[in-house]
């Protein structure tokens, strides 16, 4: 039994693998060009792709490319991404693809037929559909043709427009065309050209300003690149932004400089990432008014109109919905339709809906208007043909399309419409509120300058804080002086105490040392300069110059000389003599300090 269960389990586990091995690979081969219609000298992007799910791609060929030497291959890129997916019950699924991208620049006009591209997967051949590339003679682009902005290398080698060249990385804004009519589409593409190995996740672009344009962005979902030659070097060109812009006024409009930041490096421990920032250049677009004479409400594009009523009979007072759809190439948000007044029918404001698509570099879409028509009188009501005028760029002429006349019949007596949809009486009605009386007297002032803007206000405002600062500075200086004085007094007292201790200890040498130090310190504090070491004659001159009276000067000199003498003949000094010296010194110091206070 156990063996049976084990066998069954192994059989179930290997079944998906066996199924996978036996399954046919899913293969898709595509051959596409963007655009398929170009002019001589313009670039087109030819893409050959094979995608295989579950098989091994052996080969991918497009033999017809070699047949046409008139198609100059500007760049060639091959991508071989491979994916594995794991699904419950299906084992490991391998998905691989090969994509060859050629940027071609035709040199001769004509029609180029490409046979199917052939891919060989697991020994079996698969084919794409054929492709026709139409090359028109060189001439002015009317805006109705190819998506020129998609070819970054079209003019790079010849003239590096819309870019500030940098040999490491630079931004380029490609605007096509750069001379348009009001409302005509301008394709704006921002490329990052770089020779650096950037990290795609770190790329942070910022959009250029497009004042004066109505802009529809084609979102860039993944960062794709191509290799293009610029100034003899090969760059990777990434599309950062792709927009369709519609100028809203004539004159020269400017597309602002784009910005981007990205990281390079950081791929190994020894390769520190580096942030790179680049700014592009502004690009001008010349916008012309539409040719005159022409209908005033014409827009640029190519449109068709459809109109219908949701029913052709209704009770009087009931609503009938009129819908008009304008579909075509261009910016449908520019479209305006005015429904003329209908006799016996009340028309409510229309609901407007837009649907827009951006495909192959062109914006197209549908604008729908829905009017609610309320028949107020019985009978047949007719909606006249509605015209839409547009300027067709392909033929450079104004054209008009119109809807057929539409009718509906209302029957029955008129019933009063609910108040919610009664027509708005826009005439102002005076309210019952009273607003008077008016004022008979006025100073007729001329908007006096507010006090805060008067010149003196700032000065007056600054005065108290400035005064405060000055007071604080003064107080600080006084405090500093007092502190210094207090320190000097403390030293003085310390010296006097030391002298008294020496006196008690009957140590004449030390006592007279302190006496000299006390007098010298008192003089230092008074004069602000050290006087120790000065000869007595110079000290006398200095003290006289400082304004000390002669008696004090004489006493100071006498005491210093006596102390000096006694220090070196200390054995003959009595204690009484030292006591008298201390008293004389105290008196001298007091006089020196008094003299300081006096000055």
């Amino acid at each position, binding site marked *: 039994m156990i063996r049976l269960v084990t066998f069954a389990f192994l059989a179930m586990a290997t079944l998906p693998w066996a199924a996978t091995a036996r399954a046919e690979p899913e293969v898709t081969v595509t051959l596409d060009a963007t655009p398929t219609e170009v002019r001589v000298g313009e670039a087109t992007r030819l893409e050959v792709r094979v995608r295989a799910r579950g098989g091994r791609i052996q080969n991918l060929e497009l033999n017809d490319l070699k047949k046409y030497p008139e198609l100059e291959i500007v760049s060639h890129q091959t991508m071989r991404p491979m994916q594995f997916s794991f699904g419950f019950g299906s084992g490991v699924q391998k998905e691989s693809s090969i994509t060859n991208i050629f940027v071609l620049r035709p040199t001769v006009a004509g029609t180029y037929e490409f046979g199917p591209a052939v891919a060989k997967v697991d020994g079996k051949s698969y084919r794409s559909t054929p492709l026709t590339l139409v090359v028109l003679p060189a001439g002015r682009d009317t805006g109705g043709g190819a998506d020129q902005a998609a070819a970054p290398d079209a003019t790079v080698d010849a003239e590096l427009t819309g870019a500030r060249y940098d040999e490491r990385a630079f931004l380029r804004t490609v605007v096509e065309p750069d001379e348009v009519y009001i409302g005509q589409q301008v394709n704006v593409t921002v490329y990052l050209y770089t020779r650096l190995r950037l990290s795609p996740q770190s790329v942070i672009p910022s959009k250029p300003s497009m*004042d*004066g344009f*109505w802009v529809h962005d084609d979102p860039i979902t993944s960062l794709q690149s191509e290799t293009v030659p610029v100034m003899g070097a090969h760059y990777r060109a990434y599309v950062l932004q792709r927009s369709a812009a519609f100028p*809203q*006024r004539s004159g020269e409009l400017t597309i602002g400089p784009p910005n981007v930041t990205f990281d390079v490096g950081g791929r190994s421990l020894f390769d520190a990432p580096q942030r790179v920032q680049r700014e592009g250049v502004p690009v001008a677009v010349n916008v012309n008014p539409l040719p005159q004479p022409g209908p005033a409400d014409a827009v640029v594009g190519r449109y068709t109109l459809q109109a219908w009523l949701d029913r052709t009979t209704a009770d009087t007072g009931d609503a009938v919905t009129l819908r008009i759809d304008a579909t075509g190439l261009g910016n449908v*948000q*520019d479209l*305006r339709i005015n429904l003329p007044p209908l006799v016996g029918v009340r028309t409510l404001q229309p609901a407007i809906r837009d649907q827009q698509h951006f495909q192959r570099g062109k914006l197209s879409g549908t604008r729908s208007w829905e009017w609610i028509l309320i028949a107020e009188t019985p009978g047949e009501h007719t909606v006249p043909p509605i015209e839409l005028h547009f300027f067709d760029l392909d033929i450079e002429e104004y054209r008009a399309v119109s809807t057929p006349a539409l009718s509906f019949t209302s029957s029955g007596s008129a019933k009063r419409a609910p108040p*919610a949809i*009664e027509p*708005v*009486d*826009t005439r*102002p*009605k*005076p*309210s019952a*509120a*009273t*607003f*008077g*009386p*008016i*004022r*008979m*007297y*006025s*100073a*007729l*002032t*001329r*908007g006096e300058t*507010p*006090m*805060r803007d008067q010149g003196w*206000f700032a000065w*007056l*405002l600054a*005065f*108290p*804080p400035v*005064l*405060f600062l000055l*007071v*604080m500075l003064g*107080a600080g200086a006084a405090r500093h002086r007092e502190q210094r004085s207090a320190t000097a007094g403390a030293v003085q007292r310390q010296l006097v105490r030391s002298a008294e201790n020496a006196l008690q200890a009957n140590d004449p040498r030390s006592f007279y040392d302190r006496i000299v130090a006390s007098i010298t310190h008192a003089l230092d504090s008074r004069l602000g300069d050290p006087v120790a070491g000065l000869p007595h004659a110079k000290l006398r001159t200095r003290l006289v110059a400082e304004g000390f009276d002669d008696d004090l000067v004489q006493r100071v000199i006498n005491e210093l000389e006596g102390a000096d003498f006694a220090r070196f003949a200390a054995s003959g000094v009595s204690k009484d003599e030292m006591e008298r010296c201390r008293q004389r010194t105290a008196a001298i110091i007091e006089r020196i300090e008094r003299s300081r206070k006096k000055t």
Partner: protein
Amino acid sequence: MRAWYVALALLVAPVGAAAQQPGRASGVSSLTGIFKAANVAASRGDHAGAIVNYRKLTEAGIHDPDVYFNLATSFAQSGDYARAILNYERALTLHPNDSKASENLRAAEKALEERRAEVEGEAMIRRSSSISDAIYRGLSEDALAIAMLVANLVFFLALTWTAVGRRRKGWLYGLLVSSGVVLLFCALGLGVKAGLLRDGPRAVALDDRVILHEGPDPRAQARGEARAGDRGQIVDRDRDFVKLRVVRGLEGWTPSSGVGLIDPDHGVH
């Protein structure tokens, strides 16, 4: 003889001085005349005539709260409540404590809401919801400036005394804190009045439906609308278009003719 010359000079000097200021003398007389004519027209119920004359005064540079009050009243009595609201706001900006102007402003807003509600079922005018505006609404700029000067002086005197005085008392600290609070309050008030907390000058929507577009062009896509009497701020300008931000955050471009600026300093309307 010299005395005669002096007497003659004293007699002639004032006459000459008066002759040198003819514009001023006649200007005052003319402006007063226009004001009186406007008042007479308003009293007779000729609101259009009164509005024309009051506007002549404002266009001549008169930014007087009484003139704006009378202009607003004439607009209100003629049923143009949006312009009445604009001019009552202007009068209140110049004279915030004008209770009659406040009362009339509320009445004009109510009348506009009632008229719109009759047609649409409900209506509400978007007024400024700023707390700072509400706090300082009743205080004039000059009153705040004077209070700020006094508080500034008291604060720094108290601070100086606290810092350098030898005897510090409790009331001194109280004075310091209270004058500091008043100083901050006045400084913030002056900032609010000067528009430092706003992104642009205050405005009132004048047309019944002011369509707010994505760009400064009538063909640009509409984002929404402001209704007559709605308050907002002008955050940008481009030729004849202004970017209006209404008080609930909606913003868009609209022709400047449909919007009135409350602060006369900005000089668009």
